[in-house]
């Protein structure tokens, strides 16, 4: 690669349209004069690499959009946008129908890097090429501001992906009079992940419960193998196997062929986990796993742990319980539970429909937020979340939505569902939007006013 390639902004712009001096770089010279390090820097910061990366990202976005038709959003997102590389598939179609219109569709396979590495390279390219090597002149002000804004935006995406988490918080309306119904959740200081599971080991200490938590990533090995979990001071090891992403526990019928182990059940035909097809909609999957308690190499107990959360009901769970050396232990597979530094109680929920229809015009919740000794009332509705202590709670859903006798949803009492997200970069995109908007605006106005005064325009309009 010659220096004119990497530093092609030096090519005079005889074509007339692009003002090629805009991005003129500081480094000039021929390849032989530059050290190897400099050459690498120049390659990685070149505008041509930027073009390649932008086009690649565009291609990925397009193919990743089409892939969602078959694969669903979540799986496609993992494969295309959060991976290091993939083989993208472009199913050929004409007029919206597959070519040929039989099941064996013609597919073009394209190996591509994932969006993650592309965006990281783009960030580096932007930092070095678009900010450091850019000529810091008055006429590049707009470009520089824009690049700073884009860098901030990419950074916000990175922080969000690495450091944010979210889940659901569902609460029943507190009755304005009369007693609260047991098992219904009216107030909470926790929220539950939408789809991440964790394995919790609990020890009953009499008045307290000690918890040990194993994240989902360490359990996935049990999908087709046995994973052994042990800990310092634990008098046993846990072996987990047959981790089933979507399954239901069933009683073993006499004529049923079962591919998973059947556990004995006192006085019953035995229980097993029945595997189901994994749903592309991840929230639909109800995960389960077999667990064996091993004491000094001998099996002490064996059980099944399974179960999604049951919001908006109180967290009544049924873990697998066993006793060892006089102590009670329990193992549970549950959606990850996150703690909030404050408590939320739902005082009232109101849903208003457009007259004569079942389309909601508005649904909003009145909640009281208890933070330490302080308590305040807030309203949460669509487009108006609650922001507190780095957490954001959004109105997402409501219920019960099952139709009652009159065909309208069964309520009141209503429950309200909030999505709670913790994201350190929550507001960064908005700031970056201001910065980018300003940068592009400044640049456009400067270029336009220069063009209006230029001889190029006189020549074009002559």
């Amino acid at each position, binding site marked *: 690669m010659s220096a004119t390639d990497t530093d092609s902004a030096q090519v005079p712009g005889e074509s007339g349209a692009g003002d090629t001096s805009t991005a003129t770089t500081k480094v000039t010279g021929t390849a032989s004069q530059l050290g190897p390090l400099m050459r690498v820097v120049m390659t990685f910061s070149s505008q041509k690499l930027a073009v390649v990366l932008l086009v690649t990202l565009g291609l990925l976005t397009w193919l990743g959009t089409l892939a*969602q038709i078959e694969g669903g959003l979540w799986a496609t997102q993992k494969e295309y946008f959060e991976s290091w590389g993939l083989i993208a598939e472009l199913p050929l179609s004409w007029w919206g129908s597959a070519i040929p219109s039989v099941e064996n569709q013609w597919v073009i396979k394209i190996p591509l890097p994932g969006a993650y590495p592309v965006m990281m390279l783009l960030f580096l390219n932007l930092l070095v090429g678009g900010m450091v090597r850019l000529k810091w002149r008055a006429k590049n002000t707009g470009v520089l501001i824009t690049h700073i804004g884009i860098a901030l935006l990419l950074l916000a995406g990175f922080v969000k992906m690495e450091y944010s988490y979210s889940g659901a918080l569902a609460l029943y309306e507190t009755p304005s009079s009369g007693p609260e119904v047991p098992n219904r959740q009216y107030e909470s200081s926790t929220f539950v992940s939408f789809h991440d599971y964790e394995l919790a080991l609990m020890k009953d200490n009499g008045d307290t419960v000690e918890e040990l938590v194993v994240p989902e990533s360490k359990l996935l090995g049990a999908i087709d193998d046995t994973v052994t979990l042990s800990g310092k001071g634990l008098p046993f090891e846990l072996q987990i196997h047959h981790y089933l992403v979507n399954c239901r526990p069933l009683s073993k019928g006499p004529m049923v062929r079962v591919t998973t182990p059947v556990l004995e059940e006192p006085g019953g035909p035995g229980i097993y986990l029945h595997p189901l097809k994994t749903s592309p909609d991840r929230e639909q999957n109800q995960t389960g796993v077999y667990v064996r308690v091993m004491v000094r190499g001998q099996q002490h107990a064996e059980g099944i742990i399974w179960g999604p959360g049951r919001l908006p009901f109180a967290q009544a769970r049924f873990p697998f319980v066993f006793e060892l050396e006089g102590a009670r232990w329990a193992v549970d597979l549950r959606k990850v539970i996150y703690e909030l530094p404050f408590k939320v109680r739902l005082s009232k929920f109101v849903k208003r429909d457009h007259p004569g229809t079942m389309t909601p015009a508005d649904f909003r919740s009145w909640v009281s937020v208890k933070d330490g000794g302080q308590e305040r009332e807030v309203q949460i509705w669509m487009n108006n979340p609650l922001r507190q202590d780095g957490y954001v709670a959004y109105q997402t859903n409501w219920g019960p939505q099952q139709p009652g006798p009159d065909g309208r949803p069964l309520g009141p009492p209503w429950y309200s569902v909030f999505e709670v997200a913790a994201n350190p970069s929550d507001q960064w995109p908005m700031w970056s939007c201001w910065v980018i908007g300003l940068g592009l605006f400044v640049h456009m106005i400067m270029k336009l006013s220069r063009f209006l005064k230029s001889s190029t325009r006189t020549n074009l309009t002559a």
Partner: protein
Amino acid sequence: MIGATLGDVMKQLRLPLLVLLAFVLAACSRPVPKYEHEVLRTEPWSAEVVAEMASVAVQDNGREKPLSVLAAIRLYKIHGSRDVKFSIIDSSGGEQKNTLSPTEWLLDVWCFPDQAGHYPLFRIENSGVMDALGLKNDGQTPGFVYISYEQVFTVATKLRELAGEYSNVEAAQHSPVEAQVVGLWQQFIAYNQLQRQLEAFQYTVPVDGELKELFGSDYADLGLIATHADGFRAMISKLDSTLSNASESMLTLTKFIGSVAENDASGVGLVGPEEGEGDVWIPIGAALERVIKGQKGPVVDMITSLQKATNAKLLSDREAALLAYKAASIAAAGSHYNQVQIERETNYYHSSWHYQAIHWFLFSFLLAAITWMMPRSKLMWWASMVVSIAALGMLSYDLTLRCYITGHPPIKNLYDTFLFIAWVSVLLLLATEFVIPRRMALAAAPFFGALLIMFARMYEVSNAADTMDKLQAVLDSNFWLATHVTTINIGYAAGLVAAMLAYVWIFMRVTRIYHPSDVGAKALIRMCYGVTCFGLLFSVVGTILGGVWANDSWGRFWGWDPKENGALMICLAQISLLHARFSGWVRDVGFVVWAGIIGLVVVFSWFHVNLLQVGLHAYGFSSELRDAVWICYSAQGGILVVGAIDVLLRPNPARASAKAGVT
């Protein structure tokens, strides 16, 4: 000189133009289908009554709207057209042509159901549908036929069966016949619901004894029941709970009233709520029930005037009754009847400023075309410019009225995007013409404006939905509609305008009107570049604002939803184009082809993603929309392919010796 070149081009295009002309003529002169039944309404509705009835308020899909709007939406759905055309063969054998506006048609459905039921209304484009339903195909026109409600009614059972069966298959997988059978069933239902709103007024129930005495007649109809509600209530109160002491005719009558009260699935409310009774309008049957229970006042007048309007012998009596109905309807709804707003909306559709703008845009385009022949004429330039600005003014007024009526910023659904993008595109092209006055943007502006408004009107009919419908909760935010939605659509508009300028460049190169190094070609590239820069600002800001909105309503800035991806693709394509240009990687040809591809990306993002049936912006599947999207792809792709072939065959075209004269 340029005239000569243009002349050569025209010579080459003569044959295709003739074919096109023949095609257009054939399309315009479609034979009018015949009405073959007894004529019950022998004279036309008077213009005054139609105008008055057009602005009667009804509640449909969560909002009060003029009757004319309801009639139009339903007619689009049922008939796929803006009016009903048919010819009547009179006794002397002469052919009399009729055209009904949506309001006139709805009045016929209500007041002359037997006649309206025989209008040739349902368009069958595939003879396979007729065969599947067992209908005789008498072939009015090769290609398609119109059949009446009564004809469909005879095969309704079969139709329901087939439609139910086909509905189990995904819409995108339907064969043309299956798609039309499902569509026909939905159209049939839509018609049936409209007709049933007032159907009960056509029936009478024979009565005797006490009832005969009460009504002063040996039959009862809804009008008589409403007038004598007090006496009737007194008689009902004497009945025991099992109706064992009811006379035969009393039993028949109560059964009839019961079925009337339940017999309306149209979801359209005709009678406004009483003070303090919420905001739901009710159908006539439910109103009758209330009258029997003791409600008095204008509701009674509504029912009695409808009885006359649907049954009087003379048309003039029926018309008088309709006017009385309107007055009673206003009185019955009280403060719920926003007359100013309803009149404003009626007038909006009646004046239809955007439709008028089409004509002026086309006139301006003609003037601009003349400026090509008379390049030195400042007068023609200004004439075209002034007419375009006037048409733009009409479009602006239209959009302003829409905002005023709906109480929202200009875009709140897919239909609005057409008008808004037309507005932005024309503005952008006219501004471009002022910066680089070469009469190209001057011609492109009215052409593109007229084209997009025509698309809007086609979409309005094919979508057959109220374009001012209420918003669902998540969209009901004027702040975000005004910021994100408008900026992203300005981005779309700029992308399309840049692509169009690129196609003009390709056309000029292919037809050898311009040599790539001509001043005109260079000017086109400049315009395309400027518009792309302008578009980039709005695409990027609009896309990020979309994320900020999503973050405020769903808790995530970016979710790789198809609509988000589409917006991102436009940004990426525009940014990469500008960087490829700066880095010297692409010159004129590359720039133009790239800008053309951005046009494809805009179509993908604007419409195609809504058809993919995934994500948060899935609007359901429509085969017409799919066809439109693929026609857009094919047209743009075709130009790009032709351009690419031309570049491959003539990478360095020689200058025509006479080119010096190009101005």
